[in-house]
């Protein structure tokens, strides 16, 4: 895969990183970005710290591009706030909230094309079918491996591994301790928890340590860039078979025919693999959770949300009702550096669960 060094930050895992990479640019999921700084904001402003950090990133990283997405009001309007030639090139990716109709796929496919034009204007190149397929394969394999590791490794190391995947498309090598579940045995009596909710960027990974120190164990990371962000899947075998080498002429024809098929696969993979709170209805999220909460025997849910994030906050009660599990709401904005208040809340929650 040819690549220039141009970085393209993206703020939602449902913006296909493989599409950016196939254009020869470097997709960078903001959750791992060292320069992605969450400021403390006054509560009264009602601003989401994550969306605000995305705006600040666009204002300060002028040599990179930033892709916002429409999946929440704060990011959508954050894009509106970024203006002027002094800022990074920005793009707003229209993620459909619905998923059951051809129109949702039509919108997503059109956005892929538009993003492609944006990436080319940034200095990228329109990928050949081979390049695109190769990149999709690479990302798919990495996702599969990370998903396979999830049941045995869902603490801080897992959050780091998935965030790193969103940062550079990588996955720990197969011999890595990560895949052998060698994070050390769970302390006896530790309480299995699901961590669900909005973005958990690296500056907030202390939360995972706090949970562990308090006697909990995150068995399901359902935060924005956690395990649920790894669901997009593509029919790679079928696509690869179509791209099998033939004569030069037939290969040209194939290339022409395959490109739309690859885009269709990318679109379907993301629309059908999307598991998020903003979807309407958000039944895919509940179906995804139901299976995993049961399989991993989670005894409680920590719901991680930002100030101003109505989408997640409104789910606290439905989550309790749907799964019969206790739910602890944690405000993301409190957690930077591991506040005493948040540690106290987690300790009390776990104490009640023991």
């Amino acid at each position, binding site marked *: 895969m040819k690549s220039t060094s141009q970085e393209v930050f993206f703020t939602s895992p449902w913006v296909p990183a493989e599409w950016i990479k196939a254009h020869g640019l470097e997709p960078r999921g903001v959750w791992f970005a060292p320069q992605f700084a969450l400021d403390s904001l006054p509560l009264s402003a009602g*601003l989401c710290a994550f969306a605000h950090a995305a705006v600040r990133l666009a204002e300060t990283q002028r040599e990179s591009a930033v892709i916002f997405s429409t999946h929440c009001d704060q990011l959508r309007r954050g894009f*509106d706030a970024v203006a002027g030639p002094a800022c990074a090139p920005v793009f707003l990716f229209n993620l459909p909230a619905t998923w059951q109709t051809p*129109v949702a796929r039509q919108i997503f496919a059109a956005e892929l094309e*538009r993003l492609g034009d944006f990436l080319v204007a940034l200095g990228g190149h329109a990928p050949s079918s081979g390049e695109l397929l190769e990149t999709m394969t690479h990302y798919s394999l990495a996702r599969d491996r990370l998903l396979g590791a999830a049941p045995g490794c869902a603490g801080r190391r897992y959050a780091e591994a998935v965030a790193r995947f969103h940062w550079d498309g990588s996955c720990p090598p197969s011999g890595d301790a990560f895949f052998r579940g060698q994070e050390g045995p769970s302390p006896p009596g530790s309480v299995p928890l699901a961590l669900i909710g909005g973005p958990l960027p690296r500056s907030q990974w202390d939360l995972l340590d706090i949970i562990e120190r308090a006697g909990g164990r995150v068995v399901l990371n359902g935060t924005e860039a956690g395990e649920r962000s790894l669901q997009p899947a593509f029919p790679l075998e079928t696509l690869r078979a179509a791209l099998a080498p033939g004569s030069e002429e037939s290969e040209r024809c194939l290339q022409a025919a395959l490109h739309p098929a690859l885009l269709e696969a990318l679109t379907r993979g993301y629309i059908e693999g999307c598991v998020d709170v903003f979807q309407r209805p958000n039944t895919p999220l509940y179906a995804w959770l139901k299976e995993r909460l049961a399989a991993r025997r989670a005894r409680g849910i920590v719901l991680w949300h930002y100030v101003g994030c*109505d989408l997640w906050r409104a789910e606290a009660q439905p989550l309790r009702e749907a799964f019969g599990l206790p739910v602890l709401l944690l405000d993301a904005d409190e957690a930077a550096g591991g506040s005493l208040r948040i540690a106290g809340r987690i300790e009390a929650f776990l104490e009640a669960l023991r």
Partner: protein
Amino acid sequence: MNAPRKLTLAEWDARYDHLSEAGLREPGYGGRLSRHVALEGDLRLRQLRFDESPAALRLWNFLLTENQRLREARAGGDRIVGAMKDLGTVPVMAYSLPGLRAFYPDGAWWTPCLMECSDGLLRQAEALGVDASFCPVRAMLAAFQNGEHFPRPDLLICSAGAVCDDFSAVAQRLEKMGFPIVWWEMPRRRSPGPREPARVLPGNLAAPQIQVECVRGELERICKLLGELAGQPLDAEALANGIQKANQVRRLLASLRQAVYASPGAPLPALEMLVAEMLAIHFCSDREESIGVLTDLLAEAHGRIRAGRFVVPKESVRVFWVNPVADLRAMNLLEDWGGRICGSDYMFTHALDLIPEELPPLEALARAALADPMVGSTRDRARRIVAECRAHRAEAVVVSRIPGASHCAREGTIIREVVRMELGIPAIELEIPPVCDAMLPTLGSRLQALLETAKARRPS
């Protein structure tokens, strides 16, 4: 001739007696305004000041009897459609079919204000897991649950995508409470690319053809469902007729807004104008009657302008108001403190613009839906605000924040920035809760400071 007055509820009762004796003729929903306090608990009316005209009486009675009229329509065999969030699109379709009535359950957000929270809706919404960090539209949840306000709709339709998160979250909660919802996608409107096929939208906007096609596709789906509910298909001819009727309402409103906002003094108060504008979105559940109500208001406004009789004097500061107020009293207060409304964007300017009648009806509706100020860039919205401020010589802009509303976190700053850059007039943001009495000192000092600043800028 005396200037028209704004009356208290008690003063209106006395005036009502006088008008009745003089032969006042009213529609079936008419009557004393004070009965809404006694019968429906609309306690806030006791704090409001109303225009003294029979046209205003008709407007208020029309507004305050909506739930009752919906129940009567249901009892008479009509099917009820609950349209949510799109503010002005689905009702045009529903009213194109006989036997269907559409209303916005979203409107329940004013119930806590009208009933001064005696309805308990916000408290009940909190018990359902939707607390004060959400917009007051959360009252809708409790209204669905207790069934004491509007009748349960036969069909619930809600737009999703580029909509307010708090509304979307509340609607999703509603569905989980056992109220099935048909969701339709509203993409975030964007400007067409340089070589991209584009379509002109109402409101001097444009959108890429692909977005118009997507919305049209979604509306086609809604058309089929409405047809099934009505027992007859919603064909192009019926929809075209429905659009013409909707445009009749919109033309009346356009004339009313032009007459009132462009006039030297205000011939009608801000509060009545806010309520009148609201009629555009779903005709307050009776399209024909809304035409009558607006016709009366327009005649009253024209009569007063001709006579030079203004309910708000000429020297008042001309204010452009952005977003609807959670407490209706705020509109009275603005005038009490020396301001007047000369233009407004209550979040549904797309429901005020004419739906193109020369286009195939679904195409026209799709374009009108995409012109929604809340689905596009806040900068687009700000540009329209600036244009209307210019047209009506606004001296100040108020961006009214809705407590807990996700769109308010950013939009105010952007709108004020654009207004200041383009017009150089003062602009402020104010947060107005459903009952603002406790905030009167803060609200008053901020609004008065704005009005004084605007006055100080007048040429001496």
